[in-house]
């Protein structure tokens, strides 16, 4: 457990599903050899199968007694193979055949785009962007027999030591979010590094900086001035993903807040929810409806002319509201001062 913890809050009500975060991360970190299939940041449609397929159902994390319960190792097909196209033949080789991927594309990140729930009269879906959760009790770290995974004491970021990793993949089986990826060229595991080199320079994570919806908040959880502290600990309007897996995720979500299926404008969201409660509880645990009700109360207050710190924060007008990175404090802590 680290003394201090960088954390991220994502407001799912603002996610457009544009994947700009995914591309920002891909360009910044994962365009090397063996990384083609891996997305340290991905956006998936919920309800949906997820990336890799069914990661939220196959297991990982800890049981009630704190023992690891590893899942199967997802095969490449469950992630979706990175597709190669025969541009060379089509553009330069004189082939009249259309440009086709090298294998049949039958799965990939967000493959079930916008399919959402099966209710045809009142369709519903929302987007779930995901990165490594930099857990308080990382199952990946626990599972590695070589201690190649470590959690930085100064900021809680979880990293894989690329000199120690031997590619055993126990970490992938242990992670309930499947946010470690095996690189078959380097023969080792790789994962989201929470853009620590950017944070050290006072710049927010690439996925957060590029987000057109401005839905990501970054700061130190124990810094009372940071937006993440206010949203997660003070107002309690953001929850971790799959909290029952026991790893203590440090990426938090403001749950989606879709209008009710029926009723006059202003009817309660929780009265006749468009999103089935079980969909939300599956992802965010049993407290999710408490959060929805809190958010609804804050909304009502503003609609009646009042003020709400929560909504002012969630609007996130500028970077000063969304990020409190404190690089100089973190540098001092890293140096042990």
């Amino acid at each position: 457990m680290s003394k201090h913890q960088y954390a991220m809050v994502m407001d799912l009500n603002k996610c457009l599903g544009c994947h700009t975060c995914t591309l920002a991360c891909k360009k910044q970190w994962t365009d090397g050899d063996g990384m083609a299939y891996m997305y340290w940041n991905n956006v998936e449609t919920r309800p949906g199968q997820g990336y890799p397929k069914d990661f939220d159902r196959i297991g990982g994390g800890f049981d009630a007694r704190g023992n690891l319960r590893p899942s199967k190792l997802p095969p490449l097909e469950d992630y979706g193979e990175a597709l190669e196209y025969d541009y060379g033949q089509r553009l330069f080789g004189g082939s009249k055949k259309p440009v086709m991927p090298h294998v049949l594309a039958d799965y990939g990140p967000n493959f079930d785009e916008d399919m959402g729930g099966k209710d045809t009269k009142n369709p519903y879906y929302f987007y779930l962007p995901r990165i490594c959760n930099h857990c308080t009790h990382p199952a990946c770290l626990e599972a590695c027999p070589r201690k190649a995974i470590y959690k930085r004491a100064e900021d809680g970021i979880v990293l894989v030591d690329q000199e120690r990793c031997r590619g055993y993949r126990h970490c992938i089986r242990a992670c309930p979010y499947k946010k470690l990826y095996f690189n078959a060229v380097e023969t080792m595991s790789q994962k989201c590094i929470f853009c620590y080199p950017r944070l050290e320079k006072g710049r927010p994570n690439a996925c957060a900086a590029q987000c057109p919806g401005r839905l990501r908040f970054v700061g130190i959880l124990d810094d009372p001035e940071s937006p993440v502290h206010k949203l997660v600990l003070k107002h309690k309007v953001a929850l971790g993903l799959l909290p029952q897996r026991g790893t203590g995720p440090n990426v938090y979500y403001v749950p989606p807040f879709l209008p009710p299926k029926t009723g006059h404008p202003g009817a309660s969201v929780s009265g006749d929810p468009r999103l089935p409660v079980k969909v939300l509880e599956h992802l965010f645990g049993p407290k999710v409806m408490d959060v929805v009700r809190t958010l609804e109360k804050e909304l009502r207050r503003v609609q009646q002319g009042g003020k709400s710190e929560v909504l002012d924060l969630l609007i996130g007008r500028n970077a000063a509201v969304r990020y409190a990175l404190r690089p100089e404090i973190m540098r001092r802590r890293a140096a042990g001062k």
Partner: protein
Amino acid sequence: MKQKPLILLGAVTAALGVLIAVAIARTPASSILPAESEKKTVLKLTPLAAPGGTTVKALLQPDHALWSKAPQIPLRLSRTPPLYAGGHNQDDGHRPSATVRLVRLADGDLVVRLAWTDPTEDISRRSRRIADVGAPRIYSKHPHSVADFADAAAVMIPRKRGPHASYPSLMMGHKGAPVDLYFWRAGLGFQKLAAAGRGTTTHKRRLRLSGAARRTSEGWVVVLPVGKVPAKTPVSFAIWDGKRRHRDGLKYFTVWYEAW
């Protein structure tokens, strides 16, 4: 008043017990354990002495004539005890049939030829970047695999070579008794590793060893030169079956043999 003698007796018995326990604990190990001659069952591996002029390079041919002259010793393989949480950890009872042959060159260099049965060929196929313009083939095979493991084998030798009164721990040596490992992984080649206890294995990425591996109809034959090995040096072996998702400590291994 009546109970006093009983309490006294109890106290005396307890004190005596403690004294005996301390005495046992303080007895030198040699007097409790069997004598040196009885305690160690030495599993001897006798190398063939190569005629002068034989080179390591020549022996890298698995069918070099000298190999058929070297004594063939069957290896007794064990399976790792369940050290890991969750599935694919169980011992399915299978053991490959494995043999070893050793040749010692005139200068003291030892070359090991390990052969074992493995009906499935599991090779780590390194993925590679495919040029999208002017590539020779339209659809290059993309052999990237995230859930497959490769067949592998290793020879473990204590860093301190020569006769040992007691062997280093079989679990990658122990603190104060480091081991060298000559490791081969199908598709990735040979590596020299070092360790001093479980989880301490280190490798130098650029350090590649010479060696030879050949796929046969039954399994694998791997030839590993392991440097200068004086007589009676402990040697042990390990084999990983990729099909059974072996990696790390999930493997077949032998106890310590001695190369005479």
